[in-house]
């Protein structure tokens, strides 16, 4: 029989205001196995922990229940405390009477009842707890960064500068990401390429950084410190070692009609292409869907003109399998599709564009060579209307509930740049709120209004109508003047919401990293662990975690790098002892557990099994403790119940349920 101590925390008034802690303490003394119970204002404080240690010594306690906050918060604290006082840390259970009880209830009587039940469940579990001992696992001193935008590049540079090997996996043919598509950056208006390209070059030249472009993560197994990742290097059809980057193949390629991804489909590219002039690596890829050689077998012009003999139509996808200690996700964002926002006539008029498309139009290397013009007829627009919050802060299903955060600032930037270069163009911005928190941000916005005469109107645009003469009629409301507006424009620019890249869902699943309802990756703690995923060894960098601008992204990228370095600097990690274990006498050898194991931790062997009345060779499941993460998928799949999770055994769980239902 266990000798259990129950410690009830007030958490100041967090718990004590809603839960009668004295009553929980008194009731605990009546539970099976409980020989000691007390309450205290702050159990996690030094004084509180001293009480626990003293009780363990005085009453020879074998198990502890702490009724307090979430185990995420202080389980480690109390386990360490118990270990110092001489009992196994896995003999400690937390009854979460704060998040699960006091914080979500108002009625003291009801909340107390629930707190007692939660305490009972924890006591019932501790009665069946057994001491567990963690093992050790090694750390592979190499990091993987998924995504080669500014977030990924910065993280990789920081990790590499600390002396660790880093691989960047980028799905497009070049690193650079969204930032490479931008023209100027707020609030300093320096040219995006001018500040990004040196970083790209630095990453490519770094002896610790290895870049896989046109590649995707295919499979991830393993765990913190010891991930095994399959990377699919898609067939480039161009030999990276031979290609000199002369560009002749692109000049000669007769297939010229594929919409350019880099220019957001505003112009076309050839089948063999590098996305942009400063691409790294400066080696083109052949888009096999567009290539005439691949489609019809005839052509082969690029191969004929390539002096280096780099074109290789036979090239195949290659799978690279590598081990990593840490993985940083930096998958970035995309602009939402506007098909649900027909009122803005985005799909009807070529002169209704997104802000990212405007970036390309304004860029000297863009489809119009930087000349501001209408895509329909090439005329210079005289009246431009910007619409803010298209799909952001949206109350209905069509858009996103969140603020995309960057739109207010880049719209001010666009307005200012246009007014600066084309002073005769009228610029009107429709906004809900102008949000400019950030260093020198509000000053920037005020310059747009005060110095550049940009016409800001508080209100939303209801409808944009393309007229027969090629102009656009904008119907909007002015909330401050309380009137309906109707104005003619030559160009409408939509600040479309941003959303995480579509690939993030699949990557999150492979990493078992959680994502929220908007597909942003979840942090381990929104305030205190903002760059770590709840999955150990996985870190978050950039917009994959939430909307942010370039300075914030770079800051977070550095923070993620520090966390990864902190992990890589360790030689060994303690492994979780709560792993699965098969009872060989009950195991059927049916392989169902191995089929569901996401970590490949279960194998089978035929061996002599002995037990009461049993002595025979049987095929039985064997768990690799280093690989098992204790998810429990095997235990619920096992039809005979042979598979059990140490620390969360079927009996313990049932005992908890029984205690709750008692």
């Amino acid at each position, binding site marked *: 029989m266990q000798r259990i101590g129950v410690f009830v925390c007030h958490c100041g008034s967090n718990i004590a205001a809603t839960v009668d802690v004295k009553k929980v303490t008194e009731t605990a003394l009546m539970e099976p196995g409980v020989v000691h119970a007390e309450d205290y204002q702050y159990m996690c404080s030094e004084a509180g922990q001293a009480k626990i240690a003293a009780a363990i010594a005085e009453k020879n306690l074998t198990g502890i229940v702490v009724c307090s906050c979430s185990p995420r918060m202080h389980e480690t604290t109390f386990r360490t405390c118990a270990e110092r006082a001489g009992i196994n840390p896995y003999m400690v259970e937390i009854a979460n009477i704060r998040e699960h009880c006091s914080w979500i209830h108002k009625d003291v009587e009801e909340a107390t009842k629930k707190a007692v039940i939660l305490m009972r469940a924890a006591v019932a579990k501790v009665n069946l707890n057994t001491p567990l001992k963690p093992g050790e696992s090694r750390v592979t001193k190499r990091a993987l960064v998924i995504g080669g935008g500014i977030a990924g590049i910065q993280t990789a540079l920081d990790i590499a500068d600390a002396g660790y090997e880093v691989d960047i996996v980028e799905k497009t043919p070049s690193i650079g990401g969204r930032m490479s598509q931008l023209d100027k950056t707020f609030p300093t208006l320096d040219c995006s390429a001018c500040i990004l390209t040196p970083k790209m070059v630095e990453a490519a030249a770094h002896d610790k950084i290895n870049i896989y472009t046109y590649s995707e993560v295919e499979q991830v197994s393993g765990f913190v410190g010891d991930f095994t990742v399959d990377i699919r290097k898609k067939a480039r059809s161009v030999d990276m070692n031979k290609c000199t980057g002369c560009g002749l193949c692109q000049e000669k390629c007769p297939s010229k009609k594929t919409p350019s991804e880099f220019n957001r489909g505003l112009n076309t590219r050839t089948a063999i292409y590098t996305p942009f002039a400063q691409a790294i690596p400066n080696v083109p890829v052949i888009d096999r869907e567009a290539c005439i050689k691949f489609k019809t077998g005839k052509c082969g012009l690029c191969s004929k003109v390539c002096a280096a003999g780099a074109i290789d139509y036979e090239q195949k996808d290659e799978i690279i399998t590598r081990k990593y200690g840490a993985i940083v996700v930096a998958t970035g964002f995309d602009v939402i599709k506007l098909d649900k926002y027909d009122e803005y006539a985005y799909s009807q008029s070529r002169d209704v564009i997104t802000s990212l498309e405007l970036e390309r139009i304004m860029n000297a290397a863009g489809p119009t060579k930087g000349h501001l013009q209408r895509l329909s007829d090439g005329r210079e627009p005289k009246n431009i209307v910007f619409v803010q919050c298209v799909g952001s802060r949206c109350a209905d299903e069509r858009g996103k509930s969140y603020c995309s955060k960057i739109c207010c600032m880049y719209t001010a930037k666009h307005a200012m740049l246009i007014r600066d270069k084309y002073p005769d163009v009228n610029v009107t911005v429709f906004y809900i709120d102008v949000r400019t928190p950030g260093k020198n941000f509000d000053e920037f916005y005020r310059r747009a209004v005060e110095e550049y005469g940009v016409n800001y109107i508080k209100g939303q645009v209801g409808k944009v109508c393309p007229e027969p003469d090629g102009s656009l009629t904008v119907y909007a409301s002015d909330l401050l003047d309380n009137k309906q507006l109707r104005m003619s424009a030559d160009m409408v620019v939509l600040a479309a919401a941003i959303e995480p890249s579509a690939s993030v*869902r*699949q990557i999150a*699943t492979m990493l078992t990293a959680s994502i929220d309802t908007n597909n942003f990756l979840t942090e381990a703690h929104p305030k205190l662990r903002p760059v770590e995923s709840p999955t150990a060894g996985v870190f978050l960098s950039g917009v994959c975690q939430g909307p942010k601008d370039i300075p914030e992204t770079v800051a977070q990228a550095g923070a993620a790098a520090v966390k990864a370095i902190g992990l890589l600097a360790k030689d060994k990690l303690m492994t979780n002892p709560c792993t699965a274990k098969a*009872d060989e*006498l*009950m*195991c*059927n*050898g*049916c*392989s*169902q557990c191995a*089929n*569901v194991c*996401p970590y490949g931790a279960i194998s*089978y062997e035929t061996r002599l099994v002995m037990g009461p009345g049993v002595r*025979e060779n049987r*095929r039985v499941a064997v768990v690799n403790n280093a690989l098992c993460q204790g998810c429990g998928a095997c235990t619920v*799949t096992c*039809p*005979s*119940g*042979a598979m059990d999770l140490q620390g969360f055994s*079927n*009996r313990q769980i*049932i005992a908890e349920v029984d205690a709750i239902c008692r």
Partner: protein
Amino acid sequence: MQELINRTKELLADGTVARVLGWRRGDLPTNPEPAYFNDGESLSEFVYNGFCGANLSKYMIEASELDGRTLVFLKPCDTYSFNQLLKENRVDREKAYIIGVGCKGKISEASLNAIGIKNVIDVKGAELTDACDTLTIETLTGNTTCAYRDAMLERCHVCRGKEYVVYDELIGDSADTVDGDRFDEVRKIEAMSPEERFAFFKAELSKCIRCNACRNVCPACSCRKCVFDSTKFDSAQKANSDSFEEKMFHIIRAFHVAGRCTDCGECSRVCPQGIPLHLLNRKFIKDINTLYGDFCAGESAEGATPLTSFTFGDAEPGTV
């Protein structure tokens, strides 16, 4: 039947198989029972007729541990069970010599009783060589006849087909017996209100005497140690502490075989209380088909199964 016996004698004589797993005449002509035959002589007891509903595939678990190959007779539906056991590494394909036997639908005394024919002494017209359209039944109160179809097991009316998914050779003709939809009964229960449904199952399951016949006959219930026989989980005791304990047993059993049940219908055939136990399993099968696409356990001895694999297209919890 003679053809089966002749071929069996050949295989025993030339040493291809060490023993035979088939059916032997029972104490009544309506209840032949599974049996091993070790030599040609003992085959005089062998029968194969319309009453041989018993699925022999589960016996191959123990036969796989014996020396030499075992000849086993499997009806088309039985081959699915064998394949599923193969997939779960419970039987050894190398230890089995499978003769797929023809099937014209299986009949039972319970079905005869249900149409008012009781006190059966003997039945004619149920041999595989017969046309199997009319049965002549000798009873204590005289002779009578009935359509073969009317004496058939429920499962044969909704038979999945007469295809063999695993075999070494085939003997005997089969006949199409389908005249109903497999999921009609499930749909009826789905249409009930939750209260009606609970009442329905309570009425049916309360007949259960916990004889374990359903579990012992079920090819999916092949655990070395059943959770209900184990002291490790307290599940047996827990079931006993509930006034409607039978539901625990049957519902847990249905969950344990979900995704693995081939719908062989043996559970309902052997239930001495006539509980339509197959309905629970069939509901699972119907739901799996709806949520994950058509799937038939045992159709293949390899490949992923919907409940133990993950795909991005899987139903989200909210839709279930």
